[in-house]
């Protein structure tokens, strides 16, 4: 059995780990709230830009008459190379967040029969895919838990460039949708070529005047729309990461507390055993002395 001193040392270190995980939990909780607010604040813009895009393409003749050269982003090509944009965290200690997203991505990739290239976002994703010998063409790191719109612009612009130079013919995004702090769902969507949203039936159609024409509007609008989609995915993933970290750290704190109390019990037992043993020795010694005197 371990000595009381050893148990005491173990207890202290577990207690300290518990303090750290508790602090991390509180930090994650505070930042999760901010991330959720950010997600809510970014929604009006995303909804509106989708609406504008669907207004632009609401007239079928607009899409039919598109010049392929002017709108490369909307052009469907024969798929030979598929790109995967995987959003993941930079840091660990977020429970199964990263591994869930990566698992989803790997499952998708293994089903894909075409050539695959990977764009990673987050250190975990980069390390994972380079270690396994995937063709990682771009990697973005350093903002997984606090993305800004500029980050989304960078990612979208890089993707657009690669798409234009036929680095891939289709781009899927794998990210994590935030439901609650306890449930985050890895999701995969096609983001390139841009699939213009179809307007819901029954809504009154206003015929818009375009300034400049539909064609030029679309040239500017398509990349902006892509940026918005990427930004929404980044914001969702950030909230998921923080939610996942909060849950993981909360259960780590609970576990540490449980371990401390069970260690306290064994410490008490070990100490009591020591006292009993010493008493036995004293009593035994006294008995031995008595016998010697007789």
């Amino acid at each position, binding site marked *: 059995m371990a000595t009381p001193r050893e148990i005491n040392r173990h207890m202290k270190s577990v207690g300290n780990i518990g303090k750290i995980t508790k602090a991390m939990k509180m930090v994650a909780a505070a930042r999760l709230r901010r991330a959720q607010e950010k997600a809510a604040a970014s929604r*009006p*813009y995303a909804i509106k830009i989708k609406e504008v895009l669907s207004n632009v393409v609401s007239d079928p003749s607009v899409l039919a008459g598109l010049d392929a050269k002017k709108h490369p982003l909307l052009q469907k090509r024969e798929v030979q190379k598929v790109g995967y944009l995987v959003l993941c965290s930079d840091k660990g200690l977020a429970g199964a967040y990263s591994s869930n997203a990566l698992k989803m991505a790997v499952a998708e990739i293994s089903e894909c029969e075409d050539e695959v290239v990977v764009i990673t976002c987050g250190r975990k994703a980069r390390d994972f895919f380079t270690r396994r010998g995937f063709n990682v063409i771009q990697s973005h790191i350093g903002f997984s838990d606090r993305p800004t719109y500029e980050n989304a612009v960078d990612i979208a612009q890089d993707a657009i460039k690669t798409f234009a130079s036929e680095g891939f013919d289709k781009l899927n995004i794998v990210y994590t949708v935030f439901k609650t702090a306890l449930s985050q769902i890895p999701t995969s969507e096609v983001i390139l070529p841009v699939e213009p949203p179809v307007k819901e039936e029954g809504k009154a159609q*206003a015929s818009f*005047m375009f*300034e400049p024409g539909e064609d030029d509007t679309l040239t500017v609008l398509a990349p*902006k729309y892509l*940026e918005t989609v990427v930004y929404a995915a980044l914001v969702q993933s950030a909230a998921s990461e923080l939610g996942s970290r909060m849950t993981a750290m909360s259960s780590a704190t609970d576990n540490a507390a449980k371990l401390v109390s069970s260690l306290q019990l064994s410490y008490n037992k070990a100490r009591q055993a020591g006292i009993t043993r010493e008493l036995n020795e004293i009593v035994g010694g006294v008995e031995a002395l008595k016998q010697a005197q007789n």
Partner: protein
Amino acid sequence: MATPFTFEIVTPDKMLFVSDEVTYVGFRTLVGGMGVKANHLPVIATLDVAPLKIQLADGSEEVFAVCGGFLEMQNNKCTVLATIAEPGEDIDAARATAAKERATARLAARTEDLDVERAKIALKKASMRLRVSEALGKK
């Protein structure tokens, strides 16, 4: 008096500005200057990097620096979608001047790895911000 209508500026991070008391919005599209008043027919315009001016029902005016984006006017509701937009009062003139000088220097030096488009856009944004803050200063 001119009829007021709803006007809002939305950026990816927040609703920058909302008001029901706007009577006129003046802006510049990629092909030229334009303005809308109440009951304008539905329009979608692509904005240039330019100041955007609004007039409120009480006669006051406000200026925003808008770096590209879209304007949609429909059923007396006007929405501006801009990735970067700021109220005129928030502009840091010193910073804009510095940015303008930087961009001008970059364009003048023409080093090989220069992203000309980007430098030009930076110059445009900086000069536009300056114009907005100067316009405010005169008032």
